[in-house]
């Protein structure tokens, strides 16, 4: 059992690193590959937690994450990028340096918030909670600092990964949670897909400028 915690921490740390790296990426393709690495690490963490807690549904969750998030999602994202030939750089709403500093501040806040929690849950230590909270906050930061609709979606999916990481760490969490998270990803993906093609018909571009122009007209 001595190996359980340190390995879980390591996988969590890798995922945190990917989420943090997303902040600095300028190109969509790099963003998608970072997301893929994060998804694969999540699958490994799920399998490892399954092994540590001898829970069958954790293996099942790991499998679903592998199929949907690690394989299908990146393929679909790459096809969209290819379809709209969006290889060019993603302009960020905030200078990269500033968003990096904000990222660090967010991780600091996550740690500050988690410190007073004294519960000594079997598998999930305070550090694990801090890591998953940080990934969620970083995902949100990615969403708020990107103007491109697709990069916002990837930020959203990174937040989902943070959630699943937290869910895996919960001891004896009923299966319902994981299934619904997976469901969410699936449906979200579907809906996003539908939107993207709709937006395509109307604005000929994935960039949110078209949509933002409508809002500025004001109603």
């Amino acid at each position: 059992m001595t190996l359980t915690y340190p390995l879980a921490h390591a996988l969590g740390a890798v995922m945190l690193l990917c989420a943090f790296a997303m902040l600095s990426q300028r190109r969509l393709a790099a963003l998608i590959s970072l997301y893929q690495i994060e998804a694969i690490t999540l699958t490994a963490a799920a399998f490892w937690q399954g092994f540590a807690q001898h829970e069958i549904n954790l293996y099942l969750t790991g499998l679903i994450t592998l199929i949907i998030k690690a394989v299908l999602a990146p393929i679909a994202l790459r096809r969209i990028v290819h379809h709209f030939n969006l290889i060019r750089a993603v302009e960020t709403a905030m200078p990269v340096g500033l968003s990096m500093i904000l990222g660090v501040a967010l991780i600091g806040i996550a740690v500050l918030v988690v410190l007073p929690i004294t519960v000594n849950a079997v598998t999930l230590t305070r550090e694990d909670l801090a890591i998953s909270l940080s990934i969620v906050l970083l995902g949100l930061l990615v969403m708020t600092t990107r103007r491109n609709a697709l990069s916002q979606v990837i930020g959203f999916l990174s937040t989902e990964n943070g959630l699943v990481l937290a869910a895996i760490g919960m001891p004896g969490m009923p299966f319902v949670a994981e299934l619904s998270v997976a469901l969410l990803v699936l449906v979200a993906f579907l809906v996003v897909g539908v939107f993207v093609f709709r937006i395509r018909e109307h604005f000929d571009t994935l960039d949110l400028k078209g949509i933002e122009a409508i809002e500025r007209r004001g109603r």
Partner: protein
Amino acid sequence: MSAATLAIAIPLLAAPVIALIGAPLTGARANLCVTVLVFLITLAVFASPGAGLIHADSLGVIFGILTGFIALTTAVQNIAFVRAEQSHGSARRWRVYHAMCQIMLGTTLMGLYADNIGLLWVAVEGATIAATLGVSLPRTATALEAAWKYFVLGGVGIALALFGTMLTYLAAQPALGPGLTAMSLSALAANAGHLDGALMTLAFVFLLFGYGTKAALVPLHGWLPDAYAEGPAPLTTTLSGPMLNVALIAILRFRHLMQANFAAGGAALQPGPFLLTLGLASLLLTGLSLARRRDARRFFGFSSIEHSGLAVFAFGIGGATAIFAGLLHMILHTLIKSALFQALIRGAALRGGGAPGNYGFSHLRGMLATNKYLGWALGACVFALVGLPPSGLFVTEFLIVSQTIQRAPLLSLPLGLGLLLCAVAIIRNIGPLVFDPPPAGTVAIPAGRGVGLVVLHLAAVLLLAFAMPPALVLALSGIAAGLQ
């Protein structure tokens, strides 16, 4: 198979079946039949509330009946709406629309009756996705933009709510141990004192943001005005009213966990300040945003944000009377708002169908000239929102302000300012909406029995506010004392 589970299952199962019906009108009639059945079952839920995952407590029963009633009257109005609108949009679109109506009803009832915080979260998520699809139905650029905004903001809110749910489960470990019991609301409420206070506070913040987004509290309200203004009106405005109540009740329940934990000396912080901040922000920002709206549905969407803010403020103040006032306020506001939107839909239908631009104030002005009864009913509904005496909201606002004075005197200043701003901005529109000369070429048209339902709603509001039956008074004060 308890009545509560039945009430949830029927609409969810009926949704795919109705989606198969080709003709929009038959779809609307089927939708009405299912809704009537569901309403009768919600009345029966009082007898068999069910156990385990689906267990309706008295709060759930009352709001379940309210949701059933609203869905019923909306379904009745829906037939006239569909008859006027079926020329726009493809048949496929109407099938999706009626399916979404049923899913919205089913998920709302699940949100009310669920005893499991995970199931509650799934219900709220399902309702968000159904509403998002509903908003995107008209396929116009503005509808798409509103739907995208709804999805992004709603998705983020849902994610935060899930994280909060997981943290609540984790905080329940020391008291309830692993497994399903740690996620049961009644179990959590029973031994709230033994939860891990610090973790529960963190969970509460995420839950407040998650369900706050669904309840459209400022600054999480971004999606509501545009969602209300786009999409087929009965789905996006009338049916989504009860959904706000589900989120507000969730916030109330989690607030109780925090308050009980704090009272029992746990490490949890007082939930009051969080709720008061969001409530006041909602009141003041909507008060200012209402002043310049030109579209009726967006205008009354903002008014819904104001009333959610007022309810959350009442919960933030705390104490049995304030919570009683908050709950009564939610009931009365839902009745008034749905009556108002139904009247607007009838008005727009009489003024040449529900095309997107049809809900503008300048287009709907002078309703009295089109139909006398509808004009007065519309005026009465808008007036009821304001809180001047003949309207029921006067009672609840009176109670909330009196409790604020006694418990947090300094907060009565921003509260009074917010209420004043909103009331003036709303009442300003009655003049043009009802009494102004109508646009050129409008001719008087009999409105049919739609107006009767609107008047029924207003009568229910007056009865509940001024002459509430003693049984309901006991039930509601029991709930309020329980959730103190």
